[in-house]
């Protein structure tokens, strides 16, 4: 057992730092550090810089243009990105659909889809959940009925994050038969969003953001060649994808950075004749979150090490989702506590660069309550934390 960085790894760390120092655009860095949502153009701009460097796809094999990094290199990358304020890549292409395509897709499909994901030419979104199929995803009702060389797709997908920007959507659809609950009748389809039968309607979330959407399919014709793998095997593929989604969801690097920022903010916040960091009740809560985060960091490292010895990420990755979101949400609460009365103002967009009004409050801490409110979604999406516990109790504990 040894977790010290080797000299090669230290050299890699320096190379990463140098790259971020030189190439990360100052505006993207500032917004990311202030946790202000980025627009499509900002993500694409950054992801194209990563592509130029050859570092866009950190979770892909080298043969498809991935970095082929070791778990330690990925760990270094994630930490340095969080420290510098480099945004995560949008996961729908890189981390969600691409692993399904390079694992189960045909050669033709790999050639056709992967390069555009790698170069961030195409924006993907996810079509899994439906209004009546949330935690019980397998009860989805969107149908794809075969008609010659095409499927005719009808139904509604929901909670489609950033779907308003998307060129393509990957969907779970019901092929053979309409009998609900039959997981063997689910297929994995890639659908181009510019089809006239597709409409996207926004869902406003409680923090006042437009992040998620409903996507409606009305007789949308999709070539059979856009199906990944076998008909009826979509559920199996999706499970693999969901496991990939969960490993990224521990947010250890970003929580570490946020904790550091929080300490600084609390030390600058007056509390009587001392500062808030010296308040025993506050500092104890902060320390407890920090300790939990340290444990999670090692839990994640153990999971990464297991993957590097050839094991697929297993159901244990559900722990990362549960603890990762809990810790992020606890940090949200400590930010709110630090803000005190200044958690209350809701001046939308006041921290964006083009805001020309008078700002309220002592800085970005003023947006801590909207952020807390918005981030309640984290324990709901990607398979709610209750579903993660079901997965652990069934597949790990054998209950």
């Amino acid at each position, binding site marked *: 057992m040894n977790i010290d960085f080797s000299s090669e790894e230290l050299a890699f760390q320096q190379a990463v730092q140098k790259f971020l120092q030189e190439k990360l655009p100052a505006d993207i860095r500032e917004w990311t550090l202030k946790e202000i949502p980025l627009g499509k153009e900002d993500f694409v701009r950054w992801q194209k810089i990563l592509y130029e460097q050859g570092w866009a796809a950190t979770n892909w094999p080298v043969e498809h243009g991935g970095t082929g990094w070791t778990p330690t290199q990925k760990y270094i990358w994630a930490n340095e990105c969080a420290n510098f304020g480099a945004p995560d890549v949008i996961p729908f292409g890189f981390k969600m659909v691409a692993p399904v395509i390079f694992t189960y897709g045909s050669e033709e499909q790999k050639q056709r889809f992967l390069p555009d994901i790698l170069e961030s030419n195409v924006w993907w979104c996810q079509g899994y*959940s439906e209004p*009546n*199929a*949330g*935690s*019980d995803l397998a*009860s989805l009702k969107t149908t794809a009925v075969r008609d010659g060389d095409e499927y005719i797709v009808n139904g509604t997908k*929901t*909670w489609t994050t950033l779907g308003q920007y998307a060129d393509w959507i990957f969907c779970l659809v019901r092929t053979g038969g309409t009998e609900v*609950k039959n997981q063997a009748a689910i297929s994995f389809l890639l659908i181009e969003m510019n089809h006239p039968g597709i409409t996207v309607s926004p*869902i*406003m*979330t*409680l923090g*006042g953001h437009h992040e998620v959407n409903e996507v409606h399919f009305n007789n949308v014709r999709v070539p059979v060649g856009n199906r990944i793998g076998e008909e009826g095997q979509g559920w199996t593929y999706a499970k693999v994808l969901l496991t990939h989604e969960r490993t990224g969801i521990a947010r250890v690097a970003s929580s570490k950075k946020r904790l550091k920022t929080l300490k600084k903010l609390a030390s600058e*916040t*007056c*509390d*009587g*004749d001392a500062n*808030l960091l010296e*308040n025993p*009740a*506050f500092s104890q809560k902060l320390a407890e979150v920090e300790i939990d985060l340290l444990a999670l960091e090692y839990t994640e490292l153990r999971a990464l090490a297991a993957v590097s010895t050839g094991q697929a990420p297993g159901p244990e990755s559900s722990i990362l989702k549960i603890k990762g979101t809990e810790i992020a949400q606890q940090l949200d609460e400590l930010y*709110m*506590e630090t*803000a*005190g*009365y*200044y*958690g*209350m*103002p*809701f*001046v939308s967009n006041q921290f964006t660069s083009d805001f020309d009004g*008078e700002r*309220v409050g*002592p800085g970005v801490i003023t947006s801590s*309550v*909207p952020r*807390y*409110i*918005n981030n*309640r*979604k984290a*324990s*709901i*999406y990607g398979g*709610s*934390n*209750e579903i993660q*516990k079901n997965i652990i109790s069934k597949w790990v504990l054998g209950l």
Partner: protein
Amino acid sequence: MDFSYSEEQQMLQNSVSKFIQQDYDFDRRCKLVASDIGFSQENWQLFAELGWLMVPFKAEDGGLGGSAIDLMVVMEEFGRGLVVEPFLASVVLSGSLIANGASESQKRELLGLLMDGQLQLAFAFAEPQSRYNLADVATTAVREGDNYILNGHKAVVLNGEGADKLLVAVRTGGSQIDGNGITLLLVEANVEGVHRQGYTTVDGHRAAEVKFRNVKVPVANRVGEEGTALPVIERAMDWATLALCAEAVGAMDKIYKKTIEYTKTREQFGVAIGKFQALQHRMVDMFTEYEQARSILLMAALQLDSNKGMAPKAVSAAKSRTGKAARLIGQEAIQLHGGIGVTEELDVSHYFKRLTTIQYLFGSSDFHTLRFAGH
């Protein structure tokens, strides 16, 4: 031992509750929040006509008796309806400062207008550095002949933009966190040197940053003696905090029940999700938190009415406990609703926002736990 409401209290409750159910549905509230002034003048006049604005005041001041239980009855219903009219800021908080700190002539001048709905007040106490410490006052007032010259910055002043007059806690002596040397001044909101920057708060209410630059305030506008305002402020804050706890209890009652109803109708895996024991126990926890918050609210209201000197401690106990209940019930209501719980269109998410700001308003649970312990 009797915890039931008197006939008058039941009538008061029925009257507020009927208004909420018939005239204050979720869509109307959303429209009020989005409107220019953020509430309805019509509603405000109605509140005055129905006597609700008189509830916090003693009979000798022209009020309905000023019992904490009466106030609790009104605020609980306001919590059920998520009422945004500035009753708490203008009538309860500012009204208490006038009723307990002002001279007889000031009371005659102000309280009648306040109860008639003709006057809107705001209390400017918090400052950017003060957090919940009411004695931390850096805003200064320096005597110059028959005037005070006022300078400083008051933060997140509830109803600060809509108010006709501002009650301002200022320092006339002592150091910045000295309990002595704090004075209350009544300042016309539109006089020269008062700069108000209004905004909507996360919960759909209104507040303002208020900055004073060499504002001239006649000495006659001082409320109470110079340098002795802190006890009056603390008392007003205790009443407002109790009212806030009652609002939270009303809001919690509403959403824990809505959550139970939702889980009875939302089906996943072929059954209503309310059938899952893992979720049932969590709703039992919500119910338990609600009942505990309600109990401690009653305790604090009775202590305020009994005047035995235990009120500050009792109010802090209530705020500490209620804050924790508001957190758990708010978070669980969202979580158990799932995706729909994080949307603007669902009323539960708006109750969650108000419960979240209530957690911190007038002092967090940590602050009040320590105050309860005597720190």
